[in-house]
Protein backbone atom coordinates (compact mmCIF):
# COMPACT_ATOMS: atom_id res chain seq x y z
CA UNK A 1 0.00 0.00 0.00
CA UNK A 2 1.29 3.44 -0.91
CA UNK A 3 1.82 5.94 1.92
CA UNK A 4 -0.57 8.86 1.29
CA UNK A 5 0.43 12.55 1.09
CA UNK A 6 4.15 11.96 0.58
CA UNK A 7 4.16 14.75 -1.97
CA UNK A 8 0.54 15.77 -2.55
CA UNK A 9 -0.92 17.99 0.15
CA UNK A 10 -3.66 16.55 2.31
CA UNK A 11 -6.86 18.36 1.25
CA UNK A 12 -8.11 19.28 4.75
CA UNK A 13 -4.79 20.58 6.16
CA UNK A 14 -3.09 21.67 2.94
CA UNK A 15 0.14 20.01 4.18
CA UNK A 16 2.20 17.08 2.92
CA UNK A 17 3.88 14.66 5.35
CA UNK A 18 7.41 16.07 5.18
CA UNK A 19 6.23 19.59 6.02
CA UNK A 20 4.52 18.36 9.20
CA UNK A 21 7.68 16.37 10.00
CA UNK A 22 10.09 19.28 9.55
CA UNK A 23 7.97 21.60 11.70
CA UNK A 24 7.87 19.00 14.51
CA UNK A 25 11.65 18.69 14.21
CA UNK A 26 12.09 22.49 14.26
CA UNK A 27 9.89 22.67 17.38
CA UNK A 28 12.36 20.33 19.14
CA UNK A 29 15.25 22.46 17.87
CA UNK A 30 13.63 25.61 19.30
CA UNK A 31 13.55 23.88 22.70
CA UNK A 32 17.23 22.90 22.38
CA UNK A 33 18.49 26.36 21.42
CA UNK A 34 16.00 28.01 23.79
CA UNK A 35 17.54 26.12 26.71
CA UNK A 36 21.04 27.19 25.69
CA UNK A 37 20.00 30.84 25.26
CA UNK A 38 18.39 30.69 28.72
CA UNK A 39 21.60 29.25 30.17
CA UNK A 40 23.59 32.09 28.61
CA UNK A 41 21.23 34.77 29.96
CA UNK A 42 21.09 33.26 33.47
CA UNK A 43 24.88 32.94 33.66
CA UNK A 44 25.24 36.51 32.49
CA UNK A 45 22.76 38.14 34.88
CA UNK A 46 24.18 36.20 37.84
CA UNK A 47 27.79 37.12 37.02
CA UNK A 48 29.63 39.37 39.54
CA UNK A 49 29.55 43.13 38.90
CA UNK A 50 32.53 44.43 36.91
CA UNK A 51 34.35 43.21 33.84
CA UNK A 52 36.51 40.18 33.30
CA UNK A 53 39.49 39.81 33.60
CA UNK A 54 39.81 42.67 36.13
CA UNK A 55 37.04 41.07 38.22
CA UNK A 56 37.18 37.28 38.43
CA UNK A 57 34.20 35.59 36.71
CA UNK A 58 32.53 38.93 35.86
CA UNK A 59 31.15 39.05 32.31
CA UNK A 60 33.69 40.01 29.62
CA UNK A 61 33.01 42.78 27.07
CA UNK A 62 34.50 43.49 23.68
CA UNK A 63 36.15 40.08 23.23
CA UNK A 64 34.32 39.10 20.05
CA UNK A 65 35.05 40.66 16.68
CA UNK A 66 31.84 42.56 15.77
CA UNK A 67 32.79 43.43 12.13
CA UNK A 68 33.49 39.74 11.45
CA UNK A 69 30.22 38.74 13.18
CA UNK A 70 28.33 41.34 11.12
CA UNK A 71 29.88 40.08 7.91
CA UNK A 72 28.91 36.50 8.81
CA UNK A 73 25.35 37.72 9.49
CA UNK A 74 25.25 39.23 5.98
CA UNK A 75 26.55 35.93 4.54
CA UNK A 76 23.75 33.96 6.22
CA UNK A 77 21.03 36.46 5.19
CA UNK A 78 22.31 36.16 1.59
CA UNK A 79 22.16 32.35 1.80
CA UNK A 80 18.53 32.51 2.97
CA UNK A 81 17.65 34.71 0.00
CA UNK A 82 19.36 32.33 -2.44
CA UNK A 83 17.77 29.19 -0.96
CA UNK A 84 14.30 30.68 -1.32
CA UNK A 85 15.15 31.79 -4.87
CA UNK A 86 16.26 28.23 -5.65
CA UNK A 87 12.87 26.95 -4.49
CA UNK A 88 11.02 29.67 -6.44
CA UNK A 89 13.06 28.81 -9.57
CA UNK A 90 11.81 25.22 -9.40
CA UNK A 91 8.24 26.47 -9.04
CA UNK A 92 8.80 28.42 -12.28
CA UNK A 93 10.34 25.36 -13.95
CA UNK A 94 13.82 26.96 -14.23
CA UNK A 95 16.11 24.12 -13.15
CA UNK A 96 19.38 25.82 -14.16
CA UNK A 97 18.55 28.86 -12.04
CA UNK A 98 17.75 26.52 -9.16
CA UNK A 99 21.20 24.92 -9.35
CA UNK A 100 23.01 28.29 -9.50
CA UNK A 101 21.14 29.59 -6.45
CA UNK A 102 21.76 26.34 -4.57
CA UNK A 103 25.50 26.45 -5.28
CA UNK A 104 25.64 30.05 -4.01
CA UNK A 105 23.80 28.94 -0.83
CA UNK A 106 26.30 26.14 -0.19
CA UNK A 107 29.24 28.48 -0.86
CA UNK A 108 27.79 30.98 1.64
CA UNK A 109 27.51 28.17 4.20
CA UNK A 110 31.16 27.20 3.80
CA UNK A 111 32.22 30.88 3.82
CA UNK A 112 30.39 31.24 7.15
CA UNK A 113 32.17 28.19 8.58
CA UNK A 114 35.56 29.36 7.29
CA UNK A 115 35.14 32.78 8.92
CA UNK A 116 33.94 31.14 12.15
CA UNK A 117 37.01 28.89 12.27
CA UNK A 118 39.16 32.02 11.87
CA UNK A 119 37.39 33.47 14.93
CA UNK A 120 37.85 30.21 16.85
CA UNK A 121 41.56 30.19 16.05
CA UNK A 122 41.86 33.70 17.46
CA UNK A 123 40.20 32.66 20.72
CA UNK A 124 42.30 29.51 21.18
CA UNK A 125 45.52 31.48 20.77
CA UNK A 126 44.34 34.42 22.94
CA UNK A 127 45.30 34.17 26.61
CA UNK A 128 44.72 35.87 29.93
CA UNK A 129 47.83 36.09 32.07
CA UNK A 130 47.45 36.93 35.77
CA UNK A 131 50.81 37.89 37.21
CA UNK A 132 51.67 37.79 40.90
CA UNK A 133 52.79 41.41 40.79
CA UNK A 134 50.14 43.22 38.76
CA UNK A 135 46.81 43.42 36.92
CA UNK A 136 45.81 40.61 34.55
CA UNK A 137 46.76 41.16 30.93
CA UNK A 138 45.26 39.62 27.81
CA UNK A 139 46.81 39.00 24.42
CA UNK A 140 48.25 36.46 22.02
CA UNK A 141 51.14 34.52 23.50
CA UNK A 142 54.27 33.02 22.07
CA UNK A 143 55.97 30.11 23.81
CA UNK A 144 59.40 28.93 22.61
CA UNK A 145 58.94 31.20 19.59
CA UNK A 146 55.63 29.56 18.53
CA UNK A 147 51.98 30.75 18.61
CA UNK A 148 49.41 28.16 19.79
CA UNK A 149 46.96 27.09 17.05
CA UNK A 150 43.42 25.92 17.62
CA UNK A 151 43.55 22.89 15.36
CA UNK A 152 46.37 21.48 17.52
CA UNK A 153 45.16 20.82 21.08
CA UNK A 154 48.70 19.95 22.18
CA UNK A 155 49.52 23.62 21.52
CA UNK A 156 47.38 24.75 24.47
CA UNK A 157 49.39 26.09 27.41
CA UNK A 158 48.68 26.17 31.13
CA UNK A 159 50.85 27.26 34.04
CA UNK A 160 51.31 23.59 35.03
CA UNK A 161 52.53 22.75 31.54
CA UNK A 162 54.93 25.72 31.42
CA UNK A 163 56.41 24.56 34.72
CA UNK A 164 56.56 20.90 33.69
CA UNK A 165 58.33 21.74 30.44
CA UNK A 166 60.69 24.13 32.21
CA UNK A 167 59.69 27.15 30.09
CA UNK A 168 61.36 30.16 31.73
CA UNK A 169 59.32 32.95 30.10
CA UNK A 170 56.57 33.68 27.59
CA UNK A 171 56.02 36.59 25.25
CA UNK A 172 52.61 38.34 25.23
CA UNK A 173 51.36 40.79 22.56
CA UNK A 174 49.29 42.70 25.14
CA UNK A 175 45.85 43.94 24.05
CA UNK A 176 45.13 47.69 24.23
CA UNK A 177 43.28 48.79 27.40
CA UNK A 178 39.47 48.71 27.12
CA UNK A 179 36.72 50.56 28.96
CA UNK A 180 33.65 48.92 30.53
CA UNK A 181 31.87 48.94 27.12
CA UNK A 182 34.68 46.99 25.52
CA UNK A 183 35.99 50.00 23.55
CA UNK A 184 39.70 50.65 23.35
CA UNK A 185 40.41 53.52 25.74
CA UNK A 186 41.14 56.80 23.96
CA UNK A 187 44.45 57.34 25.79
CA UNK A 188 45.55 53.77 25.07
CA UNK A 189 48.04 52.95 22.36
CA UNK A 190 46.09 50.91 19.76
CA UNK A 191 49.20 48.91 18.87
CA UNK A 192 49.91 45.68 20.75
CA UNK A 193 52.80 46.09 23.15
CA UNK A 194 55.08 43.04 23.37
CA UNK A 195 55.86 42.04 26.93
CA UNK A 196 57.99 39.19 28.25
CA UNK A 197 56.67 37.58 31.43
CA UNK A 198 58.71 35.17 33.55
CA UNK A 199 56.95 31.87 34.34
CA UNK A 200 57.76 32.35 38.04
CA UNK A 201 55.71 35.59 38.02
CA UNK A 202 52.59 33.96 36.51
CA UNK A 203 49.73 33.12 38.88
CA UNK A 204 47.24 31.98 36.24
CA UNK A 205 47.43 31.34 32.50
CA UNK A 206 44.39 30.39 30.44
CA UNK A 207 43.34 30.65 26.82
CA UNK A 208 39.95 32.02 25.75
CA UNK A 209 38.50 28.52 25.94
CA UNK A 210 35.66 26.91 27.95
CA UNK A 211 37.88 25.98 30.91
CA UNK A 212 38.81 29.64 31.53
CA UNK A 213 35.40 31.33 31.88
CA UNK A 214 31.67 30.40 31.68
CA UNK A 215 31.29 32.96 28.87
CA UNK A 216 33.61 30.93 26.64
CA UNK A 217 31.93 27.66 27.70
CA UNK A 218 28.50 28.85 26.61
CA UNK A 219 29.82 30.80 23.60
CA UNK A 220 31.62 27.76 22.18
CA UNK A 221 28.73 25.43 22.99
CA UNK A 222 26.09 27.54 21.22
CA UNK A 223 28.21 28.62 18.25
CA UNK A 224 29.68 25.13 17.70
CA UNK A 225 26.21 23.56 17.84
CA UNK A 226 24.99 26.21 15.40
CA UNK A 227 28.04 25.56 13.19
CA UNK A 228 27.22 21.82 13.12
CA UNK A 229 23.69 22.71 11.98
CA UNK A 230 25.16 24.92 9.22
CA UNK A 231 27.46 22.08 8.12
CA UNK A 232 24.64 19.50 8.15
CA UNK A 233 22.31 21.83 6.24
CA UNK A 234 25.01 22.67 3.67
CA UNK A 235 25.71 18.97 3.01
CA UNK A 236 21.99 18.24 2.48
CA UNK A 237 21.54 21.26 0.18
CA UNK A 238 24.67 20.25 -1.79
CA UNK A 239 23.17 16.77 -2.17
CA UNK A 240 19.91 18.27 -3.51
CA UNK A 241 21.86 20.46 -5.94
CA UNK A 242 23.74 17.55 -7.56
CA UNK A 243 23.10 13.80 -6.98
CA UNK A 244 19.65 14.30 -5.41
CA UNK A 245 18.50 16.46 -8.34
CA UNK A 246 17.78 13.31 -10.41
CA UNK A 247 14.35 13.29 -8.76
CA UNK A 248 13.44 16.46 -10.71
CA UNK A 249 12.92 14.31 -13.84
CA UNK A 250 10.94 11.50 -12.16
CA UNK A 251 8.83 13.37 -9.64
CA UNK A 252 9.20 17.17 -9.85
CA UNK A 253 6.59 17.94 -7.19
CA UNK A 254 8.29 15.74 -4.60
CA UNK A 255 11.64 17.36 -5.46
CA UNK A 256 10.16 20.85 -4.99
CA UNK A 257 8.80 19.71 -1.62
CA UNK A 258 12.24 18.42 -0.59
CA UNK A 259 13.82 21.77 -1.45
CA UNK A 260 11.11 23.53 0.56
CA UNK A 261 11.78 21.32 3.59
CA UNK A 262 15.55 21.86 3.23
CA UNK A 263 14.90 25.60 2.90
CA UNK A 264 12.77 25.64 6.06
CA UNK A 265 15.61 24.00 8.01
CA UNK A 266 18.10 26.45 6.50
CA UNK A 267 15.92 29.42 7.49
CA UNK A 268 15.68 28.10 11.03
CA UNK A 269 19.48 27.82 11.26
CA UNK A 270 19.84 31.38 9.97
CA UNK A 271 17.14 32.66 12.33
CA UNK A 272 19.06 31.17 15.28
CA UNK A 273 22.06 33.26 14.19
CA UNK A 274 19.87 36.39 13.89
CA UNK A 275 19.16 35.98 17.64
CA UNK A 276 22.62 34.69 18.55
CA UNK A 277 24.56 37.57 17.01
CA UNK A 278 23.09 40.46 19.05
CA UNK A 279 22.88 38.44 22.29
CA UNK A 280 26.46 37.15 22.24
CA UNK A 281 28.31 39.84 20.26
CA UNK A 282 26.51 43.11 21.01
CA UNK A 283 24.75 43.01 24.40
Amino acid sequence: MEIPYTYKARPDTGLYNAKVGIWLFLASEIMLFGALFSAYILLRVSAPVGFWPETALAWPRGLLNIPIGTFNTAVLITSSVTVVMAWASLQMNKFNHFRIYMVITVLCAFAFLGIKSFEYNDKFSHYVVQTKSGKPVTGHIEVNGKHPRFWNFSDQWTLARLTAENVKEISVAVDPERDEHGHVKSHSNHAHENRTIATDDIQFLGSYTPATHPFFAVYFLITALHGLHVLGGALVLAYFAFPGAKMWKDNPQQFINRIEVGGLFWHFVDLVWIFLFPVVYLL
Partner: protein
Amino acid sequence: MSLKSFHLVFIIASVALMTFLSAWNFLNYRESQIGSDLAWAVAAGVAVVGLIIYGRFFLRKLKNISYL
Protein backbone atom coordinates in the same frame (compact mmCIF):
# COMPACT_ATOMS: atom_id res chain seq x y z
CA MET B 1 3.70 27.50 7.20
CA SER B 2 5.39 27.45 3.79
CA LEU B 3 8.92 28.54 2.96
CA LYS B 4 7.41 31.76 1.58
CA SER B 5 5.86 32.66 4.97
CA PHE B 6 8.96 31.63 6.91
CA HIS B 7 11.12 33.70 4.58
CA LEU B 8 8.96 36.75 5.31
CA VAL B 9 9.36 36.13 9.05
CA PHE B 10 13.11 35.84 8.51
CA ILE B 11 13.28 39.10 6.54
CA ILE B 12 11.28 40.91 9.25
CA ALA B 13 13.69 39.54 11.91
CA SER B 14 16.66 40.63 9.77
CA VAL B 15 15.22 44.15 9.40
CA ALA B 16 14.77 44.29 13.20
CA LEU B 17 18.36 43.12 13.74
CA MET B 18 19.82 45.62 11.28
CA THR B 19 17.79 48.45 12.84
CA PHE B 20 19.13 47.48 16.25
CA LEU B 21 22.68 47.19 14.89
CA SER B 22 22.43 50.63 13.30
CA ALA B 23 21.16 52.20 16.54
CA TRP B 24 23.78 50.32 18.60
CA ASN B 25 26.62 51.55 16.38
CA PHE B 26 25.24 55.09 16.33
CA LEU B 27 25.09 55.20 20.15
CA ASN B 28 28.67 53.91 20.23
CA TYR B 29 29.69 56.63 17.79
CA ARG B 30 28.10 59.34 19.96
CA GLU B 31 30.19 58.12 22.88
CA SER B 32 33.46 57.25 21.14
CA GLN B 33 33.43 59.66 18.11
CA ILE B 34 35.18 56.89 16.15
CA GLY B 35 34.42 57.17 12.41
CA SER B 36 34.16 53.41 11.85
CA ASP B 37 31.24 53.20 14.33
CA LEU B 38 29.36 55.78 12.25
CA ALA B 39 30.23 53.92 9.03
CA TRP B 40 28.81 50.68 10.49
CA ALA B 41 25.67 52.51 11.64
CA VAL B 42 25.13 53.88 8.12
CA ALA B 43 25.87 50.47 6.53
CA ALA B 44 23.32 48.77 8.81
CA GLY B 45 20.80 51.52 7.95
CA VAL B 46 21.38 50.88 4.22
CA ALA B 47 20.86 47.15 4.89
CA VAL B 48 17.49 47.95 6.51
CA VAL B 49 16.36 49.85 3.38
CA GLY B 50 17.75 47.12 1.11
CA LEU B 51 15.95 44.35 3.02
CA ILE B 52 12.62 46.23 2.92
CA ILE B 53 12.96 46.76 -0.86
CA TYR B 54 13.87 43.10 -1.28
CA GLY B 55 10.87 42.02 0.85
CA ARG B 56 8.49 43.94 -1.45
CA PHE B 57 10.17 42.45 -4.55
CA PHE B 58 9.89 38.97 -3.02
CA LEU B 59 6.18 39.39 -2.31
CA ARG B 60 5.55 40.52 -5.90
CA LYS B 61 7.64 37.69 -7.39
CA LEU B 62 5.94 34.94 -5.35
CA LYS B 63 2.41 36.35 -5.28
CA ASN B 64 0.98 33.13 -6.82
CA ILE B 65 2.49 30.81 -4.18
CA SER B 66 0.51 29.90 -1.06
CA TYR B 67 1.44 31.08 2.44
CA LEU B 68 0.52 27.65 3.87
